[in-house]
Structure formats: structure tokens, C-alpha cells
């Protein structure tokens, strides 16, 4: 513990140098901008900026690149709340209550609690990384294919608990999302599936294209179809007081922020969909804990505070497997390993002892970067909210323009533009039949990991599915999934028994 505190102190000395402060500021500012713009995600931005880092020292380059990553995590929530376009997959859940809050003239508190929650989560998770990171990093090593299968199954069960409407429709959308994730090359044998001879589909459907179509374009179509003389996309508050979370908001959000920080940190340690699973696990947990769960989906601030906190904590925690074990927990971390290797550094268990200035400098910079995000974004709240005053007839074409060009910028391909348009129309049609696209998207993201894990497990178990429940972690996760799935039935039985006792 003492050693970690000394290391953190040394890290602050490095991170607070003028040059590193500047790189950190550049990273978080770029990250926020990238998160706001649909299409251009942190992976593409970090890859584009890699050549710039050749001229920097390893610590400065990693400080800037990590700033882009957690800046994008926050930036993604801005568009989720304002225009219902998730900048990142982990911001999909924020669309549900965040955008509903914006509709009801509470965009400021939604953005504010997202900024403060992300800051608190960032601080908690960074301290967690510093104090317990190397020790808990081994948790990631305990996860094999069977454990991942169980984790993703739990995640999928949680997905079906999100959103309003009949559960059977959420389950239908999740199943379709799983099927959609199999389009393209099979992850084990490389067999081409469901591409119908279209070359562009070999890499599968792009998550950003799906998000822009199913959420962005579909939202514009929904508003156009439902419009009855309205001039604004959503209500927009005026006055600074209305823009910040009030005492009641803070009271409602303090629990979700605390729980989201811990949950996000724990799930962020796991390679794979940690940040994504943490955001909707937090949402489901808060809805279950709420006195009035019916408020969720109608603009409950807890539905923004919990998931936003959790995804930011997970983003910070994902640095633990990277720095302590050299394991990239997601694609962005994979690119960061590339950045380190370019500098001749191999991340792993020896990094903290061999290059303490890099290890602790990056960790300290995360604390500073989170403070920068808060200082940058809270004063900008009036600017973000002012966007809502732009009349719908002007904002709607702008959203379409961003979706079209954002899709094109992914691979400079007109095919992606066409897919965005098609998925936009599909997304609108799905809303007409009350089929929520959120479970589809979340299952789509988890689908590849689930397929790979199931198939690897069955390979290891020589075809026996018993391998999935033989290990204690996977058995516990499957049991938890079953409990979540059966919870409504258990509650019903409990109410019946209690009701029966009262009447007798």
C-alpha cells in the first residue's frame, strides 16, 4: 500500500509537468470531440494519431492516448443524451433515460450528472488501479472460455431487463442481435456466413453503422412521423440553475454513482465487453433497487448516473490488465499496446518495477485528466444544451448529415452509407412495433465474444457442454443469470405468499 502511494506521488510529479499536462489536455479534448462525433471512435482516432506519438516519449504518448479513450467515453454520452445517437457502444444505455430527460427539459442535469459521475468514477477507479490494480489483475487470468460464456450469458439476461415493453420482445431483439453478430467471417474457422456474396459484409456489420442507423436516423424518422407542429427536437431549459443537477438529483444519484464505480471497476478488469456489460448491469441493478422502477425509461436520473459512472470506471480499470499483465481488454487497449511496442516497451508484470515513471505517470495523469474533463465540460453545458434550441427542421438534417458522413468516414465506403440508411428505416419500423433496438445492439456487441467462448469451451470439453458449469466462477455466473431471469416469477410467488398470509 505504502509502495503504491509513493509510486502515485512520483507519478504526479511526472504527470504535472507542463508538457504532460498539455498532452493530457489535448487527449481529453480530442477524446470528447471524437466521442461526440458519430462514426469516428477512439480506436480510429488513436490509430490515426499513432504517428504523432513516435516523436514523444512513451509516458507522454500513453498519457495523451489514454486521455482520448476516457474523453471519448464521456463525449459519447453527450450525443446519447441530446440526440439519442450513442457515440460509443457503452453509451447505448444512456440513450434510454438520458434522452428522455432531455425531452422533458432536463438535458442539463443529465449531462451534469454524467460529467460529475464520470469524474467520481474516474477518481475511484484510478485509485483502485493504483492501490489494488496489480493485485487484482490476476482475476482476469482466472477467466477462461467457460467463464466468459457465463459472463456474456449473464450480460444477455441483463440486456433483456433493459427498456420498457414486453420482455418477450426484448428477448426477440437480443436473439436477433446475436444472429446479426454472426454475419461475416466465422471467428474460429473463417467460414463466410450470410454475406450473400457481398464483399463488404465479410467483416461483418459495423457497430457504429448499426448505432447511427438504428438510433440516429431512426430517431429523425420517428420525430418526423410523430411531428405535430413542434419546432424543437426536445425541450430545452434556460438559466444556469436549471442546467445543473439540484439537491434532489444528487440525492437520487449518489447511490447509483457509488455502486456504478465499484461495479464498473470490477467488470472493467475483465478483458472483453467489460465496459459495455458494466453500463447495462448498473442500469438493471438501479432499476431493481429503485422504489418506483416504473420511472426508468421515463427520464430517471439514476438511469444516467449509474451506467455513465460504471462505463467510465470500467474504462479506467481496463488499464489494469494492460499495464499489469500486458493483456489488451478491448480494441483500444490493443492499439495502445502497439503504441508502447513502437517505443520499445512491452507491458506486463515487470512494467511497474522497470518503468515506474510510465506506470505511475499514466495512472496519475488519469486523475488529472478526469479533473480536466470536468473543468472542460461543465462550463460547456450551456453550449451543449443550447443545441436543443436549434429548431428540429434544421437539427434533423444536421443529424442525418453527421450520420451519413460519419458512416462514410469509417472506411470511406458508400456501402456503409447505404447500410446506415437501411438500418435507419429498419429502426423506425422496429419502433412502430415496439421492438426496442437497444437489446439488439447490446446482444450484437456481445455476440462474437459469446460464440467464440462457447465454441472454445466445447472444443476444450471435447464437445461436452458440462464444461460450462463445472468451474466455480462460471457456475456462479450461470446461477446469477438464472436468478435474474427468474426474479419476476420469484417476486410473484413471494407477493402471492405474503398476500395469502395477510388475508388469513
Amino acid at each position, binding site marked *: 500500500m505504502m509502495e503504491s502511494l509513493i509510486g502515485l506521488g512520483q507519478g504526479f510529479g511526472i504527470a504535472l509537468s507542463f508538457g504532460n499536462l498539455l498532452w493530457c489536455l489535448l487527449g481529453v479534448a480530442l477524446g470528447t470531440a471524437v466521442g461526440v462525433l458519430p462514426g469516428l471512435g477512439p480506436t480510429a482516432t488513436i490509430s490515426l494519431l499513432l504517428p504523432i506519438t513516435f516523436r514523444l516519449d512513451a509516458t507522454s504518448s500513453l498519457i495523451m492516448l489514454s486521455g482520448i479513450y476516457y474523453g471519448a467515453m464521456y463525449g459519447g454520452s453527450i450525443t446519447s443524451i441530446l440526440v439519442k445517437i450513442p457515440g460509443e457502444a457503452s453509451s447505448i444505455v444512456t440513450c434510454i433515460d438520458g434522452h428522455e430527460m432531455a425531452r422533458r427539459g432536463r438535458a442539463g442535469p443529465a449531462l451534469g450528472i454524467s460529467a460529475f459521475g464520470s469524474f467520481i468514477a474516474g477518481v475511484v477507479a484510478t485509485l483502485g488501479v493504483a492501490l489494488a490494480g496489480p493485485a487484482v489483475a490476476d482475476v482476469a487470468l482466472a477467466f477462461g472460455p467457460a467463464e466468459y460464456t457465463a459472463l456474456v450469458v449473464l450480460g444477455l439476461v441483463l440486456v433483456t431487463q433493459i427498456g420498457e415493453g414486453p420482455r418477450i420482445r426484448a428477448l*426477440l431483439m437480443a436473439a436477433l442481435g446475436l444472429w446479426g453478430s454472426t454475419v461475416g467471417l466465422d471467428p474460429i474457422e473463417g467460414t463466410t456466413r450470410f454475406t450473400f456474396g457481398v464483399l463488404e459484409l465479410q467483416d461483418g456489420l459495423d457497430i457504429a453503422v448499426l448505432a447511427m442507423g438504428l438510433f440516429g436516423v431512426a430517431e429523425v424518422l420517428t420525430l418526423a412521423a410523430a411531428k405535430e407542429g413542434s419546432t424543437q427536437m426536445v425541450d430545452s431549459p434556460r438559466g444556469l440553475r436549471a442546467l445543473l443537477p439540484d439537491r434532489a438529483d444528487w440525492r437520487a444519484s449518489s447511490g447509483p454513482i457509488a455502486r456504478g464505480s465499484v461495479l464498473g471497476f470490477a467488470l472493467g478488469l475483465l478483458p472483453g465487453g467489460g465496459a459495455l456489460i458494466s453500463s447495462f448491469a448498473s442500469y438493471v441493478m438501479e432499476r431493481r433497487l429503485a422504489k418506483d422502477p416504473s420511472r426508468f425509461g421515463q427520464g430517471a436520473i439514476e438511469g444516467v448516473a449509474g451506467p455513465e459512472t460504471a462505463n467510465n470506471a470500467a474504462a479506467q480499470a481496463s488499464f489494469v490488465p494492460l499495464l499489469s499483465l500486458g493483456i489488451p481488454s478491448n480494441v483500444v487497449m490493443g492499439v495502445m499496446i502497439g503504441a508502447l511496442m513502437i517505443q520499445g516497451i512491452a507491458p506486463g508484470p515487470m512494467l511497474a518495477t522497470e518503468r515506474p515513471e510510465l506506470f505511475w505517470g499514466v495512472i496519475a495523469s488519469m486523475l488529472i485528466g478526469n479533473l480536466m474533463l470536468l473543468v472542460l465540460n461543465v462550463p460547456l453545458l450551456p453550449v451543449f444544451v443550447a443545441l436543443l434550441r436549434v429548431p428540429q427542421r434544421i437539427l434533423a438534417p444536421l443529424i442525418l448529415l453527421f450520420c451519413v458522413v460519419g458512416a462514410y468516414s469509417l472506411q470511406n465506403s458508400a456501402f456503409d452509407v447505404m447500410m446506415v440508411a437501411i438500418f435507419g428505416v429498419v429502426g423506425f419500423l422496429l419502433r412502430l412495433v415496439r421492438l426496442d433496438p437497444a437489446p439488439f445492439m447490446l446482444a450484437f456487441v456481445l455476440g462474437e465474444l459469446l460464440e467464440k467462448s462457447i465454441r472454445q469451451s466445447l472444443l476444450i470439453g471435447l464437445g461436452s457442454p458440462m464444461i460450462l458449469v463445472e468451474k466455480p466462477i462460471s457456475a456462479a455466473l450461470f446461477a446469477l443469470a438464472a436468478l435474474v431471469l427468474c426474479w419476476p416469477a420469484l417476486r410473484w410467488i413471494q407477493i402471492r405468499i405474503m398476500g395469502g398470509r395477510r388475508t388469513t
Partner: protein
Amino acid sequence: MEDGAAPEVALSGRWDAAALGLVLLLTIGALVLSLGYPLWGDFQPGPGLFPTLAAGLAVLCALGALGSALLAERGAATGREEARVWRRLLVYAGIVLIWAASFATLGFAASGAIALTLLMRVGEGMGWLPSLAIAGVTIALGWLLFEVLLGVPLPHGVLPT
């Protein structure tokens, strides 16, 4: 937006069931396609196993959703509202699809200008002049942001490079 409520565009019971019937057919199609790949081979799962499981689950859920829709009595939108929804959807969706289809051929500026002008003129009922002005400014801003600042090589199409 009235009281900030979410726009209600859900279909009435009859159309809801019909749409879910269509979804059921699509899931059956997905299942048939999935069964076209090997499910198992050489003591290991084949490429068809996971999609088959997913499509099978989707078929079951679609059946359940269709069943509950047929049993439920619901009337979210009247016939007139449905006609309005479909009319506006056709205008918007048609323009968006044409924009996407002509993006590479006509280029970013020409396809975008045409689509945005049509959206505002036909979809929003604005005059020709404001429609053209807003489309022009939007395209110019988009070009500045994406091509000049972010270096995205947008297609030029019919316009000279």
C-alpha cells in the same frame, strides 16, 4: 413536444400483429439459412451451431410476441394517424435512401444538397429559398469539418476535384 412525452408512433393491434408475423417469417428465414451451415464436425462445433441457436431462440420469441399481440386488444393509433405516419415516413425514408444511394455517384456536396433541400421543402414544408440556403450552409459546414479539418476524403462525384 407535448409535455415532453415521447412521440407515439406505435401501430394498432392489427398492424402490430401483422408486423410481428413478418418478423416471425424473417426469423424462420434466418433459421433456414443457419441450418445450411454445418452444426458439428470433427468433434467440434461447426460454423452453423451458434447462428442456429440464435435464430431458433428468435423464432420462439417471435412466436411468443405474435401470440401475445394477437391476444392483446390495443389501439394506439387510429387509421388516420397511421396514414399520416406512413406518408411522412415515405417522404423521409425515401429521401434518406436516395441520398445514400447517390452519395458515391453524385458526390457528397451534390447528393447532400439535393437531399437536404428536398427534406426541408417536401418534408418540412419550408420555402425553396430557405431550404436551399440551409442545405448550402449545412453542406459547407460538413465539408469544412470532415474534409478540411478531419481529412476524410469525401466523394466529389459530379463536381470537379
